[in-house]
């Protein structure tokens, strides 16, 4: 258990990268990029975890109850926003690419461009 979450992190990253590299369709490629980024959430939350601790909310538990690290959670939240923003932008590129090129295969895009 000690390092299992981190092995999963590496696995997600590598699977995502493999997908990005082998993809033949831009939307598929963008989704693989989402997978690459999802490895960072797991890593962030993984490094901030404290065994047996509660979530960092003191609404209904006494203050000073041991809690997991709130900082990585804030970072992960920022990360989620970044993901949404970048994905939206990339998808708008993909739509235009499809209009201009009539295809979404990166290989064909490159050869059609000139």
């Amino acid at each position, binding site marked *: 258990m000690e390092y299992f979450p981190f092995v999963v992190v590496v696995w997600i990253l590598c699977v995502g990268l493999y997908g990005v*590299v082998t993809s033949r369709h831009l939307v598929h*490629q963008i989704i693989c990029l989402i997978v690459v*980024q999802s490895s960072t959430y797991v890593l*962030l939350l993984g490094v901030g975890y404290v065994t047996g601790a509660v979530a960092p909310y003191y609404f209904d538990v006494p203050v000073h109850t041991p809690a997991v690290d709130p900082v990585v959670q804030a970072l992960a939240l920022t990360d989620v926003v970044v993901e949404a923003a970048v994905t939206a932008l*990339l998808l708008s590129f993909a739509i235009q690419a499809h209009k201009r090129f009539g295809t979404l295969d*990166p290989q064909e895009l490159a050869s059609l461009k*000139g």
Partner: protein
Amino acid sequence: MDQLLALVVAVPLLAAAAITAAGPLLGERRRILDALAIVVAAASTVMLVVIMVRTAGRDEVYWFAGFRPSGGVAIGIDFEAGPLSAGLAALAALLVTAAMTFSWRYFERVATYYHTLMLTFLAGMTGFCLTGDIFDMFVWFELMGVSAYALTAYRPEERGPIQGALNFAVTNSVGAYLSLSGIAVIYGRTGALNMAQIGAYIGRHPPDGLVTVAFLLIISGLLIKAAIVPFHFWLADAHAVAPTPVCVLFSGVMVELGLYGIARVYWSMFGQALGHRAAISHLFVALGVLTAVVGALFCFRERHVKRLLAFSTISHAGMFLTGIGLLTPLGLAGTAVYVIGHGLVKAALFLCTGIVLHRLGSVNETWLHGRGRQLRVTGVVFTLAGLGLADLPPFATFLGKGYLDQSAWAHGLPWVMPVFIICAILVGGAVLRVAGGVFYGLGDPPSEDSQMAKMAAEEKSETESGKQRTPLTMLIPAGALTAAAIAVGLIPQLGQVVQAAAVRFEDQAGYNATVLAGAHITHPVALAATEPAGITLSAVLAGLGSAIGALVLALAALYWRRLPLLRRGYEPGAGLTGPIQRFQSGVLNDYITWIVLGLACLGGVLTAVIR
């Protein structure tokens, strides 16, 4: 408490929001907003110059929301401004101002998006330069990135911009996520995000796998942004198709920001922990020299003027990385001066290319041959800037390059100087060949390369009307930037002042004390000794030699087919076409493959070095 450091980021952001909100209300009177955007960028430039001058004696630290560190632990985010970081941000703001002035009469009007994105881009660059917090750095890096991707695709009605923007966005996003992974890894060890605090923590122990991996992951995004071989492929695709005023920012300062990031991360976090090993210095120098040579060769072969300038940027990025990688104050100081000179000159070259595109509607060197004769002033500015790019004294480029070479020489790398002179000759020769052919009609048009012609044909005029004359708003920024590049080179004692700043930048203990304890470091101590930073004869000769060499090379390329001695039909650099098409394939998947493979190799080398 002094608020300037916060305002340099807050003001452009507020202005971006205000312009978006007010745009539809003003209708046809939107020129007011254009003017507002230019004024804000100019004001940012002034504020950053003030900060740069003010920090000449000591660095300034600003804690957001007033959360000061206690006991060496930071709980808030800080900005840490020194002359080098503020100076680079000031260059960025200056180029944004110039680019927006240039585009006053340039674009078909599309709501207010252009100005909004330019201002968020500026805020991102400024924040990236000044921040002292590693996660905050990632945030500004992403803001810079997202704005830049969108600006690249500013003309979505054409094929090139969309494809270039996609390659740019995906490669840089992969890099950013790897950087974020590195940040998370180092956070898992140190429980800190403040760079000084992390540096202090990991500096106590000899480096292990975690530190090495975090270092490589964090700089991977920056290496991609800095277009270091083999992570450089996206750059030519994106620079060739982005609107010309945006290219000014991409080439003039965004790539350099990636390099700045590497220097910042090294000198405030990892330097002490990695022990400033010679092997690491050599690794950076090797990468830098490789990039410089590859960029220069590709640059000389190119016929698409914007791509040509893009490859020249790659070549220069390699030289900058070499300067940083020497790990000496003079190397860093030389790089800083070189970055300023190069940024100004390269911006002027792109602006002139923009004028050519505006007036003549093409960027194909072969087609343009002899057609730019009536653009006299533009031709003069372009030629001057081209000479500046080839390190002609007294352009600031020659000074920076001179320091860099001198420091390399003093640290047992004498071969760096001749290699870089050759690179400067190739790059300068390519640019001057364009100048001589397009503006003066010298020699023969270079042979048509069908592939490149096709690409250049995609690049149509970006402007709508009024092509009969060049508006002054386009010409003045280009001329002013060239003049500024000369003026910077003429500042007396520039070398000593910048070297003093570089010493402070490379003083990790001093940086720690400044940030975490609010200390006032008057006598920073860098790891390597300072060196005399005057204008040496060898620097002048090297600069003159590069410029003359570049001129000769340009003339030789133009009159190649008339030289009786040489075999006809042989085209200089023709042998490079194959590799260019093979590697610079434009296929996103290839680029990511090279990035992954390059990182794996770098990881292997670093593992061997650390063990």
